[in-house]
């Protein structure tokens, strides 16, 4: 039985939370009450995205401003070209589960 990685009540709408799932850094993003999970790495420079701002369903890398769609992982603007890895999220009550 998988352990929950975080609680939904910890992540406000429009906020993010970085968690470790099996050695993998995962960023949980609350988009209007729904949780999405992406790898916490900007595909442009390899740095983390967790200090980036979530605007709706897009997250902006804090270093060079590349935008990613947190639902599909798509790189929406340069300087990122490669999509960011997305993960399947399941919630049960307040618990969040991520498949890595």
């Amino acid at each position: 039985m998988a352990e929950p990685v975080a609680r939904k009540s910890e992540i406000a709408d429009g906020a993010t939370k970085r968690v470790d799932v099996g050695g993998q850094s995962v960023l949980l993003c609350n988009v209007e009450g729904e949780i999405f999970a992406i790898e916490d790495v900007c595909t442009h420079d390899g740095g983390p995205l967790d200090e980036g701002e979530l605007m709706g369903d897009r997250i902006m890398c804090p270093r060079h401003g590349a935008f990613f769609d947190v639902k599909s992982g798509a790189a929406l603007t340069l300087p990122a070209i490669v999509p960011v890895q997305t993960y399947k999220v399941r919630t049960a009550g307040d618990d969040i589960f991520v498949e890595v």
Partner: protein
Amino acid sequence: MATELKEQVSPLTAEALVEDYRYGFHDPENYVFKSAKGLNEEIVAKISSMKGEPDWMRAFRLKALELFHAKPMPAWADTAALSEIDLSNIHYFVKSTEKTEQSWDDVPDDIKRTFDRLGIPEAERKFLSGVSAQYESEVVYHSVIEDLEKDGVIFCDMDTALREYPDIVRKYMATVIPPGDNKFAALNSAVWSGGSFVYVPPGIEVKMPLQAYFRINTENMGQFERTLIIADKGSKVHYIEGCTAPQFSTSSLHSAVVELIAMEGARIRYTTIQNWYRNIFNLVTKRAVAHKNATVEWVDGNIGSRLTMKYPAIYLIGEGARGEILSAAFAGEGQHQDAGAKVIHAAPNTTSVVTNKSVSAHGGKTTYRGLVEIHAGATGAKTRVKCDALIMDDKSSSDTKPTMKIHEQQSTVEHEASVSKIGEEQLFYAMSRGLSEADATALIVNGFFDFFVKELPMEYAVELNRLIKMEMEGAVG
């Protein structure tokens, strides 16, 4: 409140502006407005409301302002020169009808002498020095515009594009250079004004180069231009901006953003010649994206300015895309040309050529700063980088800082760099043929830049050759 935000160049007209045209100034082009020095949310919001922009653009500008304040100055650059910029002592927005209402008497004598020697026509001199609104080319302009419109080509300034083609602007603007890319891209995103917008429909070849000169617009030579060029599938366009004659400006910071999008099979060539007056900081972000089998070429010449930081970039994201960056820089006394090129190979069988040549003289400094990156999986990618620096005397210097990040074994990378001093023997030989030392030096430097000059339209090439000769004599403003 509004009166705190600006300096009233003309009390009546400025008042009319904030009082909703109480004094009967119905034509919004009839005022002169200069924002107060420095930058804050109110000024940015004011710029947006004066332009009558949609809410999303206002939000975009305000977010960009936040990023501008949050981002540090680039620590890797010429920090001594950058520290001379007093960001709080700049008017970030100037709006007028008849250009900046500058007087010909205010134009420095050395610039006037340069115009004389270059043989620049009277009307063009006034345009270049900001005295008159535009280069007198209306007749040519109208016939060009008619031809373009028949083919569905859109060519206008960015403010007009935002009003008339908001959907295209919203879809593509800032997708190549997002506001958070760097401090000066953020600044431009917050306060941009003017710049060109070009859209070429699929399969259309624009035969005549589009020149910024042709835009009948009062904000042609703004400090914070924003240019967006989109060449749809299989189309072709050549855009030219700038000029070889020195551009005088009372504002010391110029920070443009240029975004090029070449769709599948399209071709864009972007030619720039800039010769800023020696007080100007020219901090520009230029980037292109090339889709499958598309070609992008930057031809970029930099003369003058106090400090230029400009690294035209091409992201080759579609298979078979091709990029070429050809740049030339000349740094004279008290000047630093920090220029280079960036190419990112992100797809198989992409090719690129980077050629950079720089000359430093009379104590000037040139830096080549370049990046070539080949992503894993970009098999068959080929790149050739060549940068040559010529140093004219003991007071001048040059640095070469190339970076190569190669993540794909099956790719070909060539890099060649040279730094040389002007050869005594070459000079001696030329002078033994009866040339003066200045003529001989100019001949050698012109030969060094020949690869670049021959890519320019004739009138630019002729002027550039003359200008180099004058630079060698140390006679340019």
